[in-house]
């Protein structure tokens, strides 16, 4: 093969086109000075489709076939086939951002419906049509807080129990805005609201809490956190995910100003961390929202139509004064989440979330019955996941469990975390047996 299989030119066509352009050969089309031209080789051998499929299948088969009891921000539920088949329609997946709304009404409407789903789940009136993931959404919430808060301040308060990667992204975005990140303590798996109340003050621009927490604990004093933040004139940003939001307290009802989190819990399989960032907020911050927004309007015939809107917030118009640099987002993943949610309906969503509570509770009880193990560590209600205290070193147990075919998180010297969803709920007995085996 001498060329790209996706460049359709025949030799004759190429010759005629070169002649029409007025050059002798393809090389003459390039205006590259000799001193920076590349005449070497990458050494990449072209392969056939079949060879690449075989090569990659062989590679992926090298991944051990483990039953994953893993979560901590990346959650998988069964994705119905209809999601793949509809989202994979070429008209969706091979389209670009909707710069010409008249000819891209379909995707715009799908994103408008996705925004509406988040509005229902959060109770907040504004939701954008996606961020990269929960971590970058949280980071953008902090810079939004910095822009909208009336008094000066430079501290972002986060819970002690937070995924390290999330804090890392937050710190990188905060550094550019001269904000510092500080954590407040937990009280048996929930935010220590009293300690938080002691800490907040004029120097705090944002208070962040998660529900459930990264250890799966459902927060019991969310409204109080909201009040503490409001009294200090700090924004209250709440992190969650779309399945949890279906049943837990509505963020707007506990005073959340911004909701961030993960929507890839719907629509995406385990994807090595690829996600779908939620960003929703109060009307007051509409003109400070990062990312794209789809709005309803009318066309020249008076028919309802959708379009990207409020684009003066965005980088291609506002440049260094934009609310963010984000342009390409996770639109197609948002489409997948919306299709998944529609397929489940509200009863299916609620049932899925309730199962996440019941299955976690049942598995914790089974593990707790083993000697050398205590679960859950925190005396709270849990959704999907919970911490387990082990007498023996956690890393050794996790290593042994891996040899038995199970993956769990190690979160401390004697702490393991286990996440159960509809995908592994039928393997919990086997996990308990494996625990028994390795203890």
């Amino acid at each position, binding site marked *: 093969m001498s060329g*790209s299989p*996706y*460049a359709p030119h025949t030799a004759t066509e190429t010759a005629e086109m070169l002649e*029409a*352009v007025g050059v002798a050969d*393809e090389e003459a089309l390039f205006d590259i000075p000799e001193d920076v031209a*590349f005449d070497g080789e*990458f*050494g*990449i051998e*072209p392969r056939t489709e079949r060879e*690449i*499929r075989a090569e*990659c299948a062989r*590679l992926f088969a*090298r991944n*051990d076939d483990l039953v994953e009891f*893993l979560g901590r*921000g990346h959650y998988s539920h069964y994705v119905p086939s*209809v999601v793949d088949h509809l989202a994979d329609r070429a008209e*969706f997946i091979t389209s*670009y951002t*909707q*710069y010409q709304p*008249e*000819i891209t*009404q379909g995707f715009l*409407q799908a*994103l408008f*419906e996705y*925004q*509406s789903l988040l509005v229902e789940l959060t109770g907040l009136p504004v939701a954008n049509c*996606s961020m990269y993931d929960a971590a*970058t959404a949280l980071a953008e919430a902090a810079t939004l807080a910095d822009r909208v808060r009336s008094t000066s301040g430079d501290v972002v308060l986060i819970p002690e129990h937070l995924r390290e990667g999330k804090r*890392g992204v937050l710190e990188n975005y905060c*550094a550019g805005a001269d904000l510092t990140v500080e954590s407040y303590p937990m009280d048996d798996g929930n935010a220590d609201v009293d300690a938080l109340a002691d800490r907040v003050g004029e120097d705090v621009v944002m208070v962040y809490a998660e529900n459930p927490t990264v250890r799966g604990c459902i927060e019991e004093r969310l409204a109080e956190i909201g009040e503490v933040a409001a009294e200090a004139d700090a924004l209250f940003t709440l992190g969650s995910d779309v399945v949890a939001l279906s*049943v837990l307290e*509505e963020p707007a009802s506990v005073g959340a100003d911004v909701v961030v989190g993960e929507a890839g819990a719907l629509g995406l*399989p385990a994807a*090595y*961390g*690829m996600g779908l960032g939620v960003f929703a907020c109060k009307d007051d911050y509409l003109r400070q929202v990062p990312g*794209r927004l789809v*709005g*309803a*309007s009318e066309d020249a015939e008076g*028919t309802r139509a959708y*379009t990207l809107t409020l684009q003066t917030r965005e980088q291609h*118009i506002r440049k260094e004064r*934009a609310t963010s*640099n*984000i342009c390409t987002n996770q*639109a197609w993943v948002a*489409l997948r989440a919306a299709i998944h949610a*529609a397929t489940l309906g*509200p*009863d299916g969503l609620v049932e899925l979330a309730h199962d996440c*509570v*019941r299955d976690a509770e049942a598995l914790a009880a089974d593990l707790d019955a083993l000697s050398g193990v205590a679960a859950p560590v925190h005396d709270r209600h849990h959704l999907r996941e919970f911490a387990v205290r082990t007498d023996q070193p956690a890393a050794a147990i996790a290593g042994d469990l891996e040899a038995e075919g199970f*993956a769990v998180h190690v979160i401390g010297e004697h702490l393991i975390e286990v996440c159960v969803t509809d995908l592994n709920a039928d393997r919990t007995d086997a996990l308990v047996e494996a625990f028994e085996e390795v203890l």
Partner: protein
Amino acid sequence: MIHDQARYTREDDALHEPLLSEKGEQTVDVRDSSPLPDDLTREELTLPNPSEPEVARHYTRLSQMNWAIDTGPYPLGSCTMKYNPKFTEDVAADPNAAVHPDRSDRSVQGTLELCYGLQEFLADIGGMDAVTLQPPAGAAGELTGILIAKAYHEHHGNDRSEVVIPASAHGTNFATAAMAGYDVVELPSDENGRVDVEALDAAVGEDTAALMLTNPNTVGLFERDIAEIADIVHDAGGLLYYDGANLNALLGRARPGDMGFDVMHYNVHKTFATPHGGGGPGAGPVGVVEELAEFLPTPHVREINDGNVGYEAVEPERSIGKVHGFTGNWLVLIKAYAYIARLGDAGLADAAAKAVLNANYLAERIDMDVPHGPFHHEFAATAGDRDAADVAKRMLDFGVHPPTTKWPAMVPEAMLTEPTEIENRSSLEDLATAFNVAYADSDEVLADAPSRTTARRIDQASAARTPRLSWQALDDE
């Protein structure tokens, strides 16, 4: 060619396809069946409850109301909308690739090997020494690259405050520099949109952290003075950042690393044909020269060098930390790997050649002026005294997507056009016809366009004046 787009309109409804919420909603009492105490739950949840056949029909209809590269030419300048090979979807759908990011390194050797292989491909293609795959999009790649530059300067005790960016650059460059905490110094361009070397010389100094540059620039011209530009920036102690948006033009013929760039991002949904998905997900891997490798985000995949065969994910010594909660847009990266492997050296070079040939041929066939050349994979035509946005709306009726309009600003009424390598001569002729008919049409016809798309001309101003961003907002009216 004439294209009539789908619409499903009932006479009594002023809409094309009802919202799911308008087709039927259900309110569920959450507490009724809840295993949780009432004070930890919401009372109820109201959402659409379509049956699966209704879901299938709704989204299939929406798909018919959408333009895509598989339906026709999509020559958005600077966006590189090329065909997304179908087999890459199948490669990415392998259930063995569907792993959680917290798996132990030893249990995901296949995933790590593919990551390593892609890092190597990209390093070779860009002339870089090390690559991170973590940034989830091009703009995130820019931020990653500038944070790396910042960490490098701080490590060397240099407190630099400015990033220099040509006026003709993508808006993301300016926004990125500001997000990283830098002041932006906007560099005027010369008459061809290239870097004005004298102005650059005057602009850089001990405060310069980096120059961000797109090459070929945003009207498709190669920065012929790149070696001198690199020297000026480097002599001032600054770094050279390469915006990879236009890399498709150079594949196999020039590499940013050879031009003197220290850090760059790759747009895999542009150069390496991963689907753009109506706005994303993309992926924006970042390549750096050796001196910057220790600052790459964590984790970074490398070969195990203790005699065992395998791969590990490690934290580089002076890592900037994280730019994504996990490891980026994995499913997209798999597709990029498959595309590069399919084309190989010769295919990649051919893609660049045919992309440049197509742009030049199309420019020959249209009646508008193209003020700047010699251009490569894209050109900025000018609609002159016509409104470029109106001409674009008219083009929508002819079975093609119009180019990027009114940008870059240096070209009056710009139509920035990038047909990519995938169009054959016949579809380029369709594009040229659409350009020429629309350009020649009367003001009245343009103002009334488009007429064959699902929606007629949309009132953008009222959408922004009275934002209605959800079906709840529509219900409230």
